[in-house]
C-alpha cells in the first residue's frame, strides 16, 4: 500500500461522500479539492457550483479564490451573484453544501467570524460570506476540517452558521426544514450525527487512527457509534489523481494552494 498523509485521507474520504447526481455548492480550500477529486474519479457528471456564479464548472487546476477566471472559463454558464443566491441556493437546487470553518462544535455549528468577543475580537476572521444561507438552504451539509483542540471547541466564540443548534430538534425549531450537517470528515475520522441528539459521533476511523487520537484533538468528550468502522485506505487511483491535481495547481499558481 502506498503511504498517504492524513490530509490526503481527509480529502479522499470527503470526495467519496459525493455522488454523480449531486449538485454541490463548493467552498475554497479542502472542500474544493474534495469536490474536484470526486469529479475526476467516480463522479464525472457531478455539478460543481461556486458562489461567484459559476454553474457546472470543471477547473483543470484548483482555484486560488472563489472567483478565479478558470471557474468561469470551464463552467456550463456563469450567472450573477444575486441570481446564484436567490434562484439556485434559496430555490432549493443544491443537494450538498460543503463547508469548513475556524471553529466547529459537536453539533456542527460553525464559526468563521471572530475569535474572542464580537465587540472586541482577539482575531477578526473574514466573516460568514455565503455560509449562513448555505447552511440552511442546501438539502444537506458536509463539513471537512482538520481536527485540533483550537478548532473543535466545547463552545463557539460566535455562531456564524447553524448546524444542529443545541441538538435534538433545535434546528427544526428554528424553522429550518433541510437536513443540516450529515457528515463531518476530518483528517482522522468520519463523524455522523446521532439520530436523536444530533451530536456528531465517530462512525469510521481512518487507517492507523486510534480512538485516543480522535478524543485528544477535540475540545469535548468525543462519542463513538456502537459500531465504528475503518475508512478504506486511499486507492492508487485516488492518490494519483489528487496528487496530479495539486501538482497542476501548484504549477499554475506558483505554490499558493492549500489542502
Amino acid at each position, binding site marked *: 500500500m502506498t503511504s498517504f498523509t492524513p490530509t490526503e485521507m481527509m480529502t479522499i474520504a470527503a470526495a467519496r461522500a459525493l455522488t454523480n447526481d449531486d449538485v454541490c455548492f463548493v467552498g475554497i480550500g479542502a472542500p474544493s479539492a474534495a469536490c474536484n477529486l470526486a469529479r475526476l474519479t467516480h463522479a464525472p457528471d457531478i455539478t460543481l457550483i461556486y458562489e461567484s456564479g459559476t454553474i457546472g464548472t470543471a477547473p483543470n487546476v484548483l482555484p486560488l479564490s472563489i472567483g478565479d477566471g478558470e471557474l468561469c472559463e470551464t463552467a456550463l454558464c456563469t450567472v450573477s451573484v444575486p441570481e446564484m*443566491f436567490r434562484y439556485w441556493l434559496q430555490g432549493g437546487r443544491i443537494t450538498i453544501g460543503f463547508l469548513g470553518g475556524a471553529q466547529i462544535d459537536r453539533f456542527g455549528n460553525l464559526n468563521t467570524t471572530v475569535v474572542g468577543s464580537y465587540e472586541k475580537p482577539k482575531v477578526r476572521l473574514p466573516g460568514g460570506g455565503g455560509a449562513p444561507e448555505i447552511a440552511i438552504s442546501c438539502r444537506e451539509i458536509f463539513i471537512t476540517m482538520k481536527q485540533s483542540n483550537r478548532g473543535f471547541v466545547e463552545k463557539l466564540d460566535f455562531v456564524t452558521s447553524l448546524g444542529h443548534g443545541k441538538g435534538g430538534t433545535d434546528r427544526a425549531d428554528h424553522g429550518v426544514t433541510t437536513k443540516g450537517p450529515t457528515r463531518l470528515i476530518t483528517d482522522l475520522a468520519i463523524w455522523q450525527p446521532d439520530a436523536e441528539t444530533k451530536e456528531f459521533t465517530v462512525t469510521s476511523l481512518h487507517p492507523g487512527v486510534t480512538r485516543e487520537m480522535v478524543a485528544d484533538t477535540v475540545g469535548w468528550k468525543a462519542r463513538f457509534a456502537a459500531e465504528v468502522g475503518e475508512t478504506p485506505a486511499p486507492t492508487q487511483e485516488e492518490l494519483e489523481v489528487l496528487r496530479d491535481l495539486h501538482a497542476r495547481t501548484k504549477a499554475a499558481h506558483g505554490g499558493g494552494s492549500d489542502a
Partner: protein
Amino acid sequence: MAKIQSLHDAVAENIHDGDSVAFEGFTHLIPHAAAHEVIRQGRKDLTVIRMTPDMIYDQLIGMGCVKKLIFSFAGNPGVGLLRRLRDAVENGWPHPIEIEEHSHAAMANAYEAGASGLPCAIFRGYRGAELTRVNPNIRFVKCPFTGEELAAVPALRPDVTVIHAQRADRKGNVLLEGIVGVQKEAVLAARRAIVTVEEIVDDLASPSPNACILPSWTVTSVVKVPGGAHPSYVQGVYPRDNAAYIEWDKIASDRDNFLTWMTQNVTNAGPDVFAGRVAPLLKTGDA
C-alpha cells in the same frame, strides 16, 4: 448620458467626504485604480460597501478614508486575512471604524432591492445565525400569505458605485463579461456610478443579445484606465496577479511598510501606472 472623462475628474465630481461608496467586484474586475484615486484625493469619513472587501478596502481603511464598513466576507482571497482591517477593528488604527456585517445572500438581495427601488430585501436567511444578535439591521417579517418568517435587510442605495469593466463605446455604454458578480445591481442601486474600462471602442461588439450591458444613461462617468483592475483580473484581457496578493500580506502586516508602499505606489503615482503593471500579463492569443 455618461461623461467620458479623466479618473481625477470622475472622482472629484462624484465622490465626496462622507459619501457611501461601493467599489464592487467578485475577485474579478476589482476597481483598484479608482480606489487609489480616492485615496490620492484624500477622501474622509466614507461608508464603504462591498460583499467581499479585499486589498483596496485594506488600503482605504489603512489610509484613514473609512468611517464605516458594510460587508459580508473580508479577506485576501486565497491568502488570508486583511491586516489593515484587523488593525482597525482590533486596535483602532489609524482610527476605529464601524462595522455592519451581513451574509452574502443578504448583501446580494439588498443590492437587488436597491436596484428594484424597494426599501428592503426579503429572503430566507440568517436562521440560527448569530449576526442577528449584533446587527440591528437584520430583522424578520412574516409572509402575509403563508406565515413563514423571512429575513429582511434594508436595501443598499450607495451614493456612488464604482466598478471596472472590459470596455465601453464612445457613447459610454458599458459591457462586462465573465464573473459579473453584483456589479449590475450595484450600479443600478446607486445615485451615481463611475466605471473604469480597459478600452473605449467604436463598436461594443456585444457577444450576445443577452450580454451584461449597462446603458450609458445608467452610468455617470466612464474612464479609460487600461490595467485598472490590477492585481485583480479582467476576463479575456489579463489574468490575476496572484503574487501581488501574496506580497500584499507582507506589506500590510506592518504599519510603516504599509505607509511606505502606499506613498510610493499610490500617493506619488497616477492611473497611468496600471497599464505598465499588466503589460507582462497581457493575453495575446487565446485567453
